């Protein structure tokens, strides 16, 4: 925000230039007395300056919640009615959703499924745009994505087959590989905002968050790590708010040895990696666990999983049993048999 864009008394404008206040926001970060001292303006002039600056810096005025745009109430379906029931419609837009779990739990499977779900129109639970998938550890599982695309009509029986065949799924999944923190930063600050601004994507998946932060920092560097983590998460949060996108971060887990009382009733002895600094940045936390039992549906059998909500502003702490099938991740329904 430049000073030229504001309507100011020329005398005030000259005083601001003298005080070398470059950005309009800087005026608000200084106390009124300091402003008076540095600009030499009178008390009422300073108040007028602050009021103009504040009016320019706010994006939206206060509106009654009943009138607030329906954009923020959109949900991205997961592709399965049972899991959508757990999530009350699907993943929210405008906040960071985290999915953590041990390896082999099915997190990448669910993320791949979301990359396809997002491409459906809004009446079928999608967001009518593509997805960008950022891989930080393993290479992108292209063949599994192709298999999921082939089986879409089996998974999404609620969508007319003509619509499914008309969508070019693989054209709208943008894949990025970032091997270290710096390239991840570059990707998130340059390439991803470009895709978002053009409306080409409305889902950003980072698989996984923990990999880079755990590998690049030693145990004593946790201050530096937290700083980088906060920078990274604020970029993600900003992208999700600015472009009303769903951001999904996949996280690893760590074992919990001592039950510190701050973590809530744990249903397993694992907790998401990256600690409290990361937890504070997350809006919705989901956990996927792999159970000992197996479940059979038709000619397929799969290890049983459980998708749980750890915390979310609009969801109760609950879970659903799920399994990974050829067509994707689906909740277990009554017709499936457990062994």
């Amino acid at each position, binding site marked *: 925000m430049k000073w030229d864009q504001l309507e100011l008394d020329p*005398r005030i404008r000259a005083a601001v230039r003298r005080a070398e206040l470059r950005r309009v*926001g800087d005026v*608000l*970060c200084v*106390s009124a007395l300091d402003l008076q001292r540095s600009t030499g*303006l*009178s*008390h*009422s*002039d300073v108040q007028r300056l*602050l*009021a103009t*600056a*504040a*009016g320019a*810096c*706010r*994006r*939206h*005025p*206060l*509106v*009654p*919640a*009943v*009138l*607030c745009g329906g954009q*923020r*109430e959109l949900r991205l379906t997961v592709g399965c009615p049972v899991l959508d029931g757990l999530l*009350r*419609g699907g993943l*929210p837009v*405008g*906040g960071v959703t985290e999915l953590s779990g041990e390896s082999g739990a099915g997190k990448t499977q669910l993320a791949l499924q979301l990359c396809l779900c997002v491409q459906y129109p809004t009446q079928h639970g999608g967001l009518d745009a593509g997805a960008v998938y950022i891989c930080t550890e393993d290479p992108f599982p292209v063949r599994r994505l192709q298999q999921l695309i082939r089986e879409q009509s089996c998974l999404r029986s609620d969508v007319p087959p003509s619509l499914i065949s008309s969508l070019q799924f693989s054209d709208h999944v943008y894949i990025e590989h970032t091997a270290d923190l710096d390239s991840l930063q570059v990707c998130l600050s340059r390439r991803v905002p470009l895709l978002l601004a053009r409306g080409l994507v409305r889902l950003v998946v980072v698989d996984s968050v923990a990999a880079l932060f755990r590998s690049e920092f030693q145990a004593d560097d946790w201050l530096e790590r937290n700083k980088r983590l*906060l*920078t990274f998460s*604020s970029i993600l*949060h*900003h992208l*999700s*708010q*600015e472009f009303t996108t769903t951001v999904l971060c996949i996280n690893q887990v760590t074992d919990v040895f001592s039950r510190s*009382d*701050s*973590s*809530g*009733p744990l249903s397993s002895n694992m907790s998401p990696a990256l*600690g*409290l*600094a990361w*937890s*504070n940045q*997350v*809006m919705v*936390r989901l956990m996927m666990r792999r159970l000992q039992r197996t479940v059979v549906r038709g000619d397929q059998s799969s290890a049983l999983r459980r998708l749980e909500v*750890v*915390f979310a*502003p*609009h969801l*109760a702490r609950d879970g659903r049993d799920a399994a990974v099938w050829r067509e994707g991740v689906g909740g277990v329904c009554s017709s499936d048999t457990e062994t």
Partner: protein
Amino acid sequence: MYDSWRHVVKKRKKKKKSRPSALFTSDLLHLHPPQLSQEAGLSQQEALEVLQAVRSGGGGASVSLTALELLQKEAETRSIVTFSSRLDAALSGGVPVGKTTEICGTPGTGKTQLCLQLAVDVQVPQCFGGVGGQVVFIDTEGSFLRQRVTDVGGAAVRHCSLLVEDEEQRVAMTTFTVEDILSNIFLVHCFDHVELLAELHLLPDFLSDHPRVRLLVIDSVAFPFRRFDDLSQRTRLLYGLAQQLSAIATRHTVAVVITNQMTTRVRGSQSQLVPALGDSWGHASNIRLLLQWSGSQRLATVVKSPSHADATVQYQISSDGFRDTDQSGAG
């Protein structure tokens, strides 16, 4: 307030007043006699007379009250109930209007839930024992979801409709619906600290235009300030913010509720969870509530309060919102 000071002082003194930027009496209020005499070219005696005339002319905004008047005023303003009777008892009535209350806790303990509950509870009509006010909700994290507010609001409406006994309450229920609840919440999303500061700067004017507002929620105040490299600037900004909030609370009789995150403080080999934003932020609020888990129970502790003893109560968060636990202990 902005009387042109031509009406206040004599012409002789006016001619000598050469400082072009002082056009209103409010400018003069901030000067001392030596300053005014130096800048306007008046003698000390004349400067003193001018300032006395300005001050007695009602240019000032401060009104002094006796302690008894303050006590009576406090007794009249109702507190905002939380719908958890144990927590209300610990706070002797609920969240007080005219004071700042801070809610701290790790993620998932229910800070946003309590804020949403209060945003609905402040709107309960006065004939039901509520405050009957409106809310300003400043959301910095994006966690204000209409789905949840509809749940909590719907539960409050059902609760009140079961209590209807007389005609006045029946009439009040016609304007207490979920739709009305949503239209009495003034919402804004602030993405960073500059936007938050801008919003708070413009808030006093908004509150003067909307005198029915009785609650201001900032969820959360920590989120935009965690990423600050210059800690001394952050402390200064937070100090200014705390003063603004306390001024808003008293001048506009509004309950200010802010949520804070927790951070780990490492002392030697021990680590401890403490509220974020530093030690000096601890002075910003009148009352501090700490929400935490203890095994499978949710506990709310009144950690700091000038008028209540430290107390810990158990609560639960159901689909209806913030409530007491059942006596059986099923949290």
